[in-house]
């Protein structure tokens, strides 16, 4: 490999620039592959609830690429917390762990973040990061998604930035930590997988550093960050200046039942800068509080999806610079110790994202999607009679659809938006083998997508019978029994909300609302029915053939085709009555 002589890089070489940039993205992909393929926990390996990243020695994000948007957005805050605490004492071979939302900019406690410093010629150059949602983090119930905890300590172990490997040797605190969670063997494998991924990043980066030299490489990193900032600012400058106000609520906080919690946002677009001010949001409550890192991540997600697709894989620190976020401490979007945060980053991360995106949609409606279905997927904790082992079932199998965006219908079953469609659902044939639940229905629901010129993605009907003993039912990560998001350009939301019911063998039906803890007895039938995403544009403007196809495929009912879309279809021949349709549409 030819080294570029340091003196020759006063002017950056455009080819080297492309090459280095793509190499960083390639490294992120490699890290992600290793974690996915070798993790043991369902949530990480099968559902892909994880992310990776690379940061420079000052904590700037270099490559913001792979993983759940809700998790990755705030890596820079985390690495800076690590630097603040350990600067000058970080050695090669160290591995750091953290999940503390207050001292370590974590999200909720099960999201464990590892950092691994990468040295070149004895100088700290980069940090690799890997973060995964773990099955358990201690606390009074497994899984983390339970409302009503007394304080954050009741939600689980709260870990500030902590060294678990020192110069490649395990430190005693690691065992102490593993001893205080429920599935230590699994956690160890998952951490191994994440460490292995970060070591691959180290190998690749070392190759790059040897090839280009440290100083030159860092200069290219500066350039990457600056170029991204320029491109993002350029796009923002095309957004009409103005002040846009929005608000969004979650059903409640799981302690004060039926009292919605509001996030409020004022977006100021001025020139090439966006300011999102959340100062008017509700005060901090319990459980649904959104730690600052998740608030940042959600705003970034909203902005990035409204920018051009061309740069969608290339965001880094530079992208954040044009975005100011005002989130005063003590509010639900920046809670302070000892507030509980179990539902983060889903609630209120979703509401922050919806507020930010809806505000943008008022300025550039054709670049922003309608709200996605709120997250819906309960947790079940019990014992499997086949093995007598404890299980924690968090499968996210009932999520609804995404919101439409101008020109494109929404997709079914890919919610929630804070996960950006990166979550993967578990196979029925694996769930039934792992958990004592017999699944009897798992299908799309007719008329569950919001109507519009572009239709929202459909929601799900998921039904299963408890074949195990009594199980604890947690609806902590669900939302949207009574609240929901926004639409764009006159599109509609679906006309029903998410709903979870338990039917006991004697036929009694009980609805279990979001953010509750309940019980599923043996033989109980659990039904989760989710709404779809919002529509975009007037439904009467939807292409008639598209409506016919929706009816033929039972995405939309005949009645709905007429009432919401103004398309009259003959039920016998299944053809459009164009005359009646024209009349119906003209009468609007």
């Amino acid at each position, binding site marked *: 490999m030819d080294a570029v002589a340091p003196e020759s890089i006063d002017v950056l070489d455009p080819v080297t620039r*492309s090459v280095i940039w793509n190499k960083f993205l390639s490294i992120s992909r490699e890290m992600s*592959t290793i974690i996915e393929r070798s993790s043991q926990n369902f949530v990480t390996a099968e559902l892909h609830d994880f992310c990776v990243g690379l940061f420079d020695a000052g904590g700037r994000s270099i490559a913001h690429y792979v993983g759940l948007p809700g998790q990755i957005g705030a890596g820079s805050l985390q690495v800076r917390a690590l630097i603040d605490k350990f600067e000058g004492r970080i050695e090669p071979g160290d591995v750091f762990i953290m999940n503390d939302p207050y001292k370590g900019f974590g999200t909720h406690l099960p999201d464990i973040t590892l950092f691994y410093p990468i040295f070149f010629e004895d100088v700290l150059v980069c940090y690799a990061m890997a973060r995964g949602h773990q099955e358990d983090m201690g606390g009074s119930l497994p899984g983390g998604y339970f409302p009503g905890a007394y304080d954050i300590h009741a939600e689980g172990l709260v870990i500030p930035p902590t060294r678990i490997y020192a110069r490649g040797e395990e430190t005693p605190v690691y065992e102490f930590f593993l001893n205080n969670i429920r599935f230590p063997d699994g956690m160890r494998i998952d951490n191994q997988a994440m460490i292995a991924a970060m070591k691959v990043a180290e190998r690749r980066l070392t190759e790059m550093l040897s090839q280009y030299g440290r100083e030159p490489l860092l200069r290219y990193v500066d350039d990457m960050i600056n170029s991204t900032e320029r491109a993002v600012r350029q796009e923002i400058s095309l957004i009409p200046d103005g002040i846009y106000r929005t608000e969004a609520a979650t059903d409640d906080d799981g302690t004060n039942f039926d009292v919605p919690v509001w996030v409020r946002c004022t977006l100021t677009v001025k020139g090439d800068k966006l300011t999102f001010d959340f100062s008017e949001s509700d005060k901090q409550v319990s459980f649904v509080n959104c730690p600052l890192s998740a608030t940042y991540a959600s705003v970034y997600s909203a902005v990035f999806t409204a920018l051009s697709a061309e*740069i969608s894989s290339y965001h880094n620190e530079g992208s954040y610079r044009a975005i100011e976020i005002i989130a005063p401490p003590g509010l639900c979007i920046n809670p302070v110790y000892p507030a509980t945060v179990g539902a983060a980053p889903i609630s209120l991360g979703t509401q922050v994202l919806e507020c930010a995106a809806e505000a943008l949609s008022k300025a550039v409606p054709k670049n922003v999607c309608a709200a996605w279905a709120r997250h819906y997927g309960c947790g079940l904790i019990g014992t499997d009679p086949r093995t007598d082992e404890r299980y924690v079932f968090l499968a996210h199998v009932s999520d609804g659809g995404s919101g439409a965006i101008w020109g494109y219908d929404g997709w*079914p079953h890919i919610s929630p938006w804070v996960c950006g469609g*990166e979550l993967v659902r578990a196979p029925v044939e694996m769930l*039934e083998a792992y958990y004592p639940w017999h699944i009897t229905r798992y299908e799309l629901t007719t008329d569950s997508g919001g109507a519009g010129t572009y239709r929202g993605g459909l929601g799900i009907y998921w039904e299963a019978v408890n074949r195990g003993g009594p199980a604890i039912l947690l609806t902590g990560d669900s939302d949207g029994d009574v609240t929901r998001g926004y639409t764009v350009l006159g599109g509609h939301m679906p006309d029903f909300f998410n709903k979870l019911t338990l039917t006991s063998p004697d036929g009694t039906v009980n609805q279990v609302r979001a953010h509750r803890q309940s019980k599923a007895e043996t033989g109980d039938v659990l039904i989760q029915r989710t709404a779809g995403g919002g529509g975009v544009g007037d439904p009467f403007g939807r292409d008639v053939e598209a409506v016919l196809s929706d009816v033929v495929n039972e995405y939309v009912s005949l009645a709905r085709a007429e009432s919401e879309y103004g398309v009259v279809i003959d039920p016998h021949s299944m053809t459009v009555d164009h005359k009646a349709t024209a009349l119906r549409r003209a009468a609007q």
Partner: protein
Amino acid sequence: MLRVSVDIGGTFTDMVITEPGGSVEMFKSPSTHGSLSDGVMNCLRKAAKARNCSLDALLAEVDTIIHGTTATTNALLTRSGVKTGMLTTKGFRDIIELRRGMRVGVSPYNLKVKFPEALVPRARRIGIDERVGPDGAVMTPLDEAQVEAAVRSLKDQGCEAVAICFLYSYIRPEHELRAAEIARTVAPDMFVATSYDTIPSSREFERFNTTVVGAYVGAIFAAYIDQLDAGLRQSGFKGHLLLIQSNGGIQDRDTAKRNPVTTLLSGPSAGPSVGLFFGNQYSNKIISADMGGTSFEAALIQDNQILLTSDTWLSEQRIAAKMVDVHSIGAGGGSIASFDSLDLLRVGPKSAGSRPGPACYGRGGAEPTVTDANVLLGYIDPEFFLGGEMLLDRPAAEAAMDPIARRLDVSREEAAFAVYDVVNEGMADALNERCTKRGFDPREFLLVAGGGAGGLHVVEIAKKAGMKRVLIPKFASAYCAFGMQLPDFSQDYVRTYSRRIAAVEFDAMNALYEEMEAEGRLVLLKSGARPDQIRFERTADLRYVGQFHEVEVPCPAGEVGAASIDAVVASFHHKHEQTYAFSMQGRHVEVVYLRVRAIAQTPAIRLKEIAKGASSAVQARKAERLCFFGKRDGWQKTEVYEASALVSGNEITGPALIEEAGSTILVPNKARAEIDAHGNYLIHV
């Protein structure tokens, strides 16, 4: 007797003809897009002409034609398969549309993407009352009357194929098999595919979708292959028509018809065999790469094994059958260079294809491509493209490249070199990612490469990936067609057997292995193999208890017992460590799948040695021209050699170009090429 292989590419149809004695001939003819088999016949006519005989006379000599078809791949890519229906467990008819909630290969920040529709629309997916549980017990018996009514309804709607996909059929296939029987009775002309026969492994979305893909392309394949076969037989062909399948092996027509999903990527799957055939004498770790007009396709070979995968996505459809792990990126001679809003120079994946093609083709292409760059750098002689069959338009290449030069503020040749360099880096990164995925270090690998565009790029790619040696086979420009001459018959079988290692029952494992072997033996015998040619390779997929992805390791042949299980577990720990950089010796291990590959060896090709000579290649020097090698090295005098005049033992030191009829090889500065006994180029990077 002659053995003919045919690869139908997007631009050219390549044909290779071998004789037992070792002669190898290559022919190329433009692909015919209307009726693909016409392209094959054109190539055969060309071959007959070269041999001064009639087509009939040539065909009478041919005892085997091996074919790599793009018929099914194209049907999938262009969504032009047959109207297909689906019968599935009631309550689960949307599994193939739910797609496990995935968005594949799209940034979460890019929402302007059309939903990839299922191959069978919802209206033609019919739920049937039946249910088997995870333990294999029947919970709801199959409602046969519903099956019959459903098939009739699909038939009335004009469906030509039906996929039958029930939950847990990999444990208890009876319901699917019975439903298939009913379907065949009710609609004898319909193509019927069951998920059990397609791929009897767990995970319903993967199994169902694979089955649906097979049903969707099955009739297309049958029609295509029957037409080709009839055409060949009319012209006097009396031998066997064989097909390359997606696992890299060959199979006969009837076997392929029964499981048409195995015909996907049938052409590219033959490429790695070339890597194995030529590379084996130099290394046991090989990367095979094929760079054509629109794509760069790479595959890994370790210890004589072409590595396979069951993780394929093709045209947004999940296919979980075992396929050669060919990694394809959009980088080829036709790849277009452009700038994005970050001012980054990108090359590909957009391609000028063969129409209009690169600007220098003079067919109206105006955007700068890799081939245009190669012309401007002096690597391609505009007068000697495809051996002079096609004149290239250098001024058009210049005009196309100038905007790049202006944007970069460099000279035209520097801009061309930037395009050359960026596309090479992309391919080197792809090789790195491939290797990491398997836990390998690319620096330990030999790169065997070919394809029309490969010769000009591979040495640079190897250098960037830290690889030391490159082998460019003599038949590089018909890489896959030559590869089709090489594979054995092979069929892959899988059974699901989920147990912790401590709970494994030897009898049950033996029974499953023997069942698969019996099935494989039967299929291979039907394909014409002799019993003594048949052998089996057993493997098992293991994981640590609680993990979700398995690692496939060999299982010793013969009766399964405690010793063989110990060996399997030991290989598992080892391979896990190698692939993922860690293993956990104390942790419980479980087996998930048992697999058998049934193989019938085909006669090995023995190539004739070419004439020997001294190290100096002076006899083959035909010209000298200036080539550009980047700003630092600038323009350099570059010797040009005529490939057909080279003899074994010749050595060529870079910078040099070797011009073959179908491709040109660039030996860069400091690199050295040796001509081996068969006329292949071993290049020391």
